[in-house]
């Protein structure tokens, strides 16, 4: 009876501790850092929004995955709701703005986007907001007297029409497989009062089989315009000759294309050694024959 009482008290105490633990977990929601950025690859394309979530672990920020984020356009209402996205292992998530918002995007000069995390079990509610001035880049590529010029004009949508955007920093790049390569003589160019900037293209780089390279002018992570770019393909690269060495006798080709020297010499050695081994086996047969003859004698 006494032990039963002790057991009951212990059980109640354990339940109490469990409850305290759960309550403590409820109370300990972590602060989340939410970033929102605006990206548009080409003029006329629908923009894309990128979100990233991070939290502080020790002294550094680490990405947080599987966080649901609500994205809104202009206002945090059901009317402005663009969609809900979930962060990947790298703590990032992307949303391309749906087609039904095309009209509003085209008619607005300033674009406002809001990202929110609400009712998350682990993290406190958080929101992030950006306001983008709608802009676009017109890229022209010209070659005169063997001088290749890249010219970009940045235009800002104001009062229903496109107007030059002076004092804007842009980059000229060549699109490569893994990242962009600086194509201008300088890292950054600032547009003049006409919204224009230009640079000479002096690179000697391989293009595709036709010699095409993709050149882009872009504004990178601007607080005012977001990240926008405009690109064009042009035959300013060296035509890439495909490597057909697999069809030749090389060390990296298939077995039917083994180099002759590697076929002849090792096979000669293998044949010689195994010839001797076969001779030795034949010697066993000889010894056997002698033994049988000896028996008969």
């Amino acid at each position: 009876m006494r032990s039963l009482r002790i057991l009951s008290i212990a059980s109640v105490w354990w339940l109490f501790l469990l409850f305290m633990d759960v309550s403590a977990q409820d109370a300990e929601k972590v602060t989340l850092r939410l970033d929102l950025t605006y990206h548009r690859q080409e003029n006329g394309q629908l923009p894309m929004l990128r979100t990233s979530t991070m939290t502080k672990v020790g002294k550094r920020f680490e990405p947080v995955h599987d966080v649901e984020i609500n994205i809104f356009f202009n206002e945090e209402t059901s009317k402005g709701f663009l969609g809900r996205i979930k962060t990947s292992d790298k703590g990032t998530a992307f949303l391309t703005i749906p087609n039904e918002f095309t009209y509003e995007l085209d008619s607005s000069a300033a674009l406002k986007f809001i990202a929110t995390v609400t009712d998350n079990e682990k993290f406190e509610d958080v929101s992030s907001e950006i306001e983008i001035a709608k802009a676009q880049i017109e890229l022209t590529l010209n070659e005169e007297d063997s001088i290749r010029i890249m010219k970009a004009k940045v235009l800002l949508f104001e009062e229903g029409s496109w107007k030059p955007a002076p004092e804007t920093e842009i980059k000229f790049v060549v699109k490569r497989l893994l990242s962009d390569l600086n194509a201008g003589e300088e890292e950054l160019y600032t547009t003049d009062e006409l919204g224009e900037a230009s640079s000479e293209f002096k690179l000697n780089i391989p293009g595709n089989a036709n010699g095409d390279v993709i050149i882009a002018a872009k504004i990178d992570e601007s607080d005012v315009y977001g990240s926008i770019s405009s690109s064009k393909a042009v035959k300013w690269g060296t035509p890439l000759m495909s490597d057909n060495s697999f069809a030749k006798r090389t060390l990296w080709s298939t077995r039917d294309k083994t180099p002759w020297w590697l076929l002849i010499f090792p096979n000669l050695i293998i044949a010689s050694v195994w010839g001797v081994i076969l001779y030795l086996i034949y010697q066993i047969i000889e010894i056997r024959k002698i033994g049988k003859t000896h028996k008969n004698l």
Partner: protein
Amino acid sequence: MSTLSQVSINKITADLLPKKFGKPGIIWTTVLVMLSIGGLIGYFRQLQSGLSVTGMRDYASWGIYISNFVFFVAISLVGSLITAIFRLTNVSWRTPLTRISEIIAVSAIIFAGLIIIIDMGRPERFTNLFLHGRLQSPIIWDVIVITTYLALSLLFLYFPLLPDLPIMIKHSRAGSVNQKIYKFIGSFWKGTAEQFRISESAVKIISIMIIPVALAIHTVTSWLFATTYRPGWDSTNFGAYFVSGAFLVGSGGVVVAMYVFRKAYSLQEYITEKHFNYMGKIVVMLALLYLYFNINEYLVPAFKMKKAEEHHLMSLFTGEFSYLFWSAILVGMIIPIVVLLFPSGRKPLPMFVMGVCVVVGAWFKRFLIVTPTLLSPFLPISNSPESYAHYHPTWEEWAITVGTLAGALLIITVFVRLFPIIPIHETIEEQSKAHKL
């Protein structure tokens, strides 16, 4: 043979004939069988679920299986050292050690081949190595050279065994399984002059041929690593480094076997302290040689400490593998050198202990050559789970690895049960010559 009295001949024969296992022999064999079965269970698990049951992942794609393979290839080299090199250089005291070294070579090379199949994710495709192998790949060179070395080693074991077989037939129970085996493999040996001439000529041919093949087998194994551009493997010295290490571990293995057979079969008259003394000197020389190559392999890169190789070197010197690294150097080389330099260290028991140190040190040394390099790639490990940056063998891997080691020892044990571990005929011949003089 006639110069020795029949009594002496009978004594030698009785001393050297294989004997039934006593209690320790039965326990030893049972343990080996159990360990081998454990290995088979581990392998069955691996066949069921694939290589995911191992601790090998994207980076450490070669683990203790390949370390074990390199160890087996290394220890197999002793066959060519004791049997061939000593025979060609007329080392008179080699006779009691030749068969020991040859059976170590054969059993080791069999398991070297098997462990490669075990390391394959799809073992049923093993034949593709032969059907679709490319001569451009060092892996196919290894397959060819292992097969060749196994064939030569078997012949090297078989030819000198022939004169002993009539003795075995005579002294085995009529109609027994053992006698049937002896008759099957050697009833035709009548000891005629012509048979001896052919046999001796064959042994001479093998003695000459097996040396380059033995050097090739371990050099090619070293090329599996050295032809790959990785920290710790990118060395032009690797062939010589591997061969010197192989001679050392092989000699250590022979010393351990000498002691065990001497003790188990009371062979003190045949494997004498003189043999231990000579083998001790050889082990010291080989340990010094291997230490020299180790200094070359580690000190020179450490002096330069190229940024790309720093992670690998530091993981060995002070990092994750430092305990194992310094233990392998100390136990596998430095302690045996110090102990065996003194005549009292070359007595049977200390020799046995040092032999064990050399063999165990050599196994871990092979692991240190294979795996730390893979965990220190030139492009730092990124975008992969934390566990991929380390290698911890699973119980299946350990069971299989221990199982193969037990399997190799089981071959030697069964061989010793069936055949004389010291050549009877050759010993009688040798003692007759000595008696004549």
